[in-house]
């Protein structure tokens, strides 16, 4: 306790799926994080609450199964408890699964920190006819034990009161030593002697016993901390080998078995389980019989994926229409309010167009994350990963990667965000980096335009080939990245399939909002800068030397008597001016300067400019072509005149190469922003741009070469 300022630090520790985050949210009244995604920082999950005149600082640590420093989450947890010395460690337990949940507890007991226990989800345990002898449990665990049901708010008051009472010493927290068999105890005692010789007086009994056990277990992290005592490490290594030989079992496995033995004994005394009077299988067993059915499991999953995909993108179109209308309205309003000029153009063509073009994805993200929250909180997500793992494993991916990749066909931004559900760092990063290869819906207009213009007799097939190519490239890239780029060992596929639980509506809605707000905050900033930049490159230099005196010619035309012919001339002249404007803008100049790079692929400066504008969003490529080929800017990929305008501009081979390039080259700005956020920095976002450009260029070049060889 930190003296007079009355702050009590409370660290929440518990297994994944024990309801720890729900409890934390209930305690703090915050809605910060519903699911325990990897990379959730510690500071972010700190919340102060006030209770009986005390300030409780609640720190939510990541969900872990043990404190053996096998994963970053476990190390975060252990380091926090050891270094920050929280006043209270609140161990959250799933009352229905104490047999495993208490394993972490045995390690907390040995660390000697003051503990309070929350027997969470007590309602589930009760419905399974399980009851507890709380005083006995409290005695054996050496701390207060409170039954809670965080989802309904039961036991929260009692828990807060127990925390404060323990912190101020009103309730006793007692040190508990786990008894081991005499061989292990002998080894522990012997190790403690060695430690005492090296660290005289600096450690109490509890600390030295803990260190001795960790050293005997061969914990790499702890061993490396004692690096400078090579004699100690050597001696311990010897002890370990002797013990292992005597028992023909690794020492850490002996400790683990002993811990589980201790748990068994404790539960035999303090837990009462009545046989279920109905004799029915429980809900989880019945649902698994359906969802993991050898024949129907997969089709059911695919139907659910289809429903999710359809709702995300079809249902999403309705609010997208509203947003589009709203942005249009705002843009119209501003163009009336603000006099024509630079500020006008910057606001309307740059900022509103760019940001408006991004928030249009918001409905997709909200709907998608509603489904993901539902799947994740019910427990179905792990079943989906279970069903798909065999297939994904071929490509070095985790079963959970399937969902982000499917979502990628709709939009890469939510796909990258959905990769969060993957715990392993390596598997998650690979998934993030390959999802932009999935052909998103924004690329479809480009394919439709090109397939229609150059391959009109087999347009459908060409579009299909693009989709197939996107899958193949994503999978091959996954293998490549896993082998050569993303380091780290691939973690074993050890995944708990938690019981099915009905999520609270509140939980799902907050989850959804959190994602939406997150998307707006983090992505909109990058988009804003990006769209201003692209706008600037397109709009400047302002004073171009026109090839023709457009204004005078237009004026002259307008003076004439109105005829269809005159109107046509005006339109043509205006388009010609727009084309020249684009060619002479910085963007056009860059396009012209860069175009030699694309010359081997047969692309002209026009194609290069279109590619450059596609960085903002791939569908912009079509609008750029419309301007570059003197068509109406509002022309769509279906426009016959745009098709005929570009159809003569390149050969079929070049057109195919362009389609391949457009499919694979750099992710759009919004996706780059999402990658930066999810992969943790510009480094991977930059890598993704370079990597995809390289692949796009190489494959387009291969197409060009093959095409040349065949004709």
């Amino acid at each position, binding site marked *: 306790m930190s003296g007079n300022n009355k702050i009590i630090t409370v660290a929440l520790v518990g297994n994944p799926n024990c309801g720890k985050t729900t409890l934390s949210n209930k305690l703090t009244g915050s809605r910060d994080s519903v699911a325990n995604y990897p990379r959730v920082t510690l500071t972010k999950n700190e919340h102060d609450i006030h209770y009986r005149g005390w300030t409780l600082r609640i720190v939510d640590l990541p969900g872990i*199964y043990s404190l053996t420093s*096998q994963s970053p989450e476990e190390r975060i947890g252990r380091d926090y408890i050891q270094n920050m010395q929280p006043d209270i460690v609140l161990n959250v337990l799933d009352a229905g699964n104490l047999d495993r949940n208490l394993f972490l507890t045995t390690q907390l007991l040995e660390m000697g920190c003051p503990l309070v226990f929350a027997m969470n989800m007590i309602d589930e345990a009760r419905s399974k006819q399980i009851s507890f002898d709380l005083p006995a449990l409290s005695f054996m665990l050496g701390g207060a034990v409170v039954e809670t049901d965080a989802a309904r708010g039961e036991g929260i008051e009692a828990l807060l009161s127990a925390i404060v009472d323990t912190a101020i010493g009103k309730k006793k927290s007692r040190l508990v030593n786990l008894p081991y068999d005499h061989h292990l105890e002998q080894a522990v005692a012997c190790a403690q002697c060695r430690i005492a010789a090296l660290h005289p007086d600096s450690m109490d009994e509890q600390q030295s016993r803990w260190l001795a056990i960790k050293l005997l277990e061969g914990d790499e992290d702890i061993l490396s901390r004692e690096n400078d005592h090579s004699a100690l490490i050597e001696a311990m290594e010897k002890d370990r080998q002797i013990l292992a030989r005597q028992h023909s079992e690794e020492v850490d*496995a002996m400790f683990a078995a002993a811990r*589980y033995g201790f748990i068994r004994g404790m539960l035999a005394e303090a837990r009462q389980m009545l046989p279920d009077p109905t004799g029915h299988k429980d809900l989880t067993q019945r649902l698994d019989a359906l969802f993991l059915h050898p024949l129907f499991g997969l089709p059911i999953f695919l139907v659910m994926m289809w429903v999710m995909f359809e709702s995300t993108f079809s249902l999403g179109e309705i609010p997208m229409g509203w947003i589009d209308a709203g942005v249009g309205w705002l843009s119209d309003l501003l163009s009336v309010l603000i006099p024509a000029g630079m500020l006008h153009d910057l606001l309307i063509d740059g900022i509103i167009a760019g940001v408006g073009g991004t928030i249009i994805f918001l409905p997709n993200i909200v709907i998608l994350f509603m489904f993901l929250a539902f799947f994740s909180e019910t427990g179905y997500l792990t079943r989906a990963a279970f069903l798909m793992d065999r297939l994904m494993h071929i490509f070095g991916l985790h079963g959970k990667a399937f969902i982000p990749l499917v979502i990628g066909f709709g939009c890469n931004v939510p796909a990258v965000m959905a990769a969060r559900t993957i715990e392993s760092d390596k598997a998650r990063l690979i998934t993030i980096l390959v999802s932009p290869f999935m052909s998103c819906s924004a690329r479809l207009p480009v394919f439709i335009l090109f397939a229609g213009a150059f391959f009109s007799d087999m347009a459908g097939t060409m579009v299909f080939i693009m989709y197939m190519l996107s899958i193949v490239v994503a999978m091959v890239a996954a293998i490549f990245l896993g082998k050569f780029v993303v380091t780290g060992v691939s973690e*074993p*596929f050890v995944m708990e*399939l938690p019981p099915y639980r009905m999520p609270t509506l509140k939980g799902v809605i907050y989850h959804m909002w959190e994602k939406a707000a997150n998307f707006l905050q983090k992505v909109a900033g990058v988009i804003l800068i990006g769209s201003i930049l692209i706008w600037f490159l397109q709009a400047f230099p302002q004073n171009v030397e026109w090839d023709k005196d457009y204004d005078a010619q237009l004026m002259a035309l307008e003076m004439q008597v109105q005829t269809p012919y005159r109107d046509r001339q005006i339109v043509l002249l205006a388009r010609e001016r727009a084309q020249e404007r684009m060619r002479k803008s910085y963007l056009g100049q860059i396009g012209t300067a860069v175009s030699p790079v694309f010359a081997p692929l047969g692309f002209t400066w026009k194609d290069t400019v279109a590619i450059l504008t596609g960085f903002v969003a791939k569908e912009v490529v079509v609008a750029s072509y419309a301007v570059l080929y003197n068509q109406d800017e509002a022309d769509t990929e279906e426009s016959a005149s745009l098709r005929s305008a570009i159809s003569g501009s390149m050969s079929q081979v070049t057109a195919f190469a362009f389609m391949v390039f457009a499919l694979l080259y750099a992710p759009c700005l919004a996706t780059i922003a999402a990658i930066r956020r999810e992969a943790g920095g510009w480094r991977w976002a930059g890598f993704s741009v370079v990597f995809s450009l390289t692949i796009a260029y190489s494959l387009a070049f291969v197409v060009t070469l093959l095409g040349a060889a065949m004709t």
Partner: protein
Amino acid sequence: MQETRSDNEAGYSAAELKLGQHGVISSIQGGDSLRRRLNALGMVKGAELVVAHAAPMGDPRSYIILGYQVSLRKEEARNILLQVAN
């Protein structure tokens, strides 16, 4: 090493259990990292497990241990050696 091999020959692994079959763990092979992870999940010597479900093509499979369900790929399950039933 000698002992490990004889264990392997005498026993069989969790990967060889059929759906619905029980087994009692005798030891975990396959290196420190995997063993510690599985130990933490309750897969220690003497613990009993049952095969609950198999994914399409038989891999991965889920096991019930200590009353909860966990999924393992065959390559991991092969490292969980079982006692031979008498």
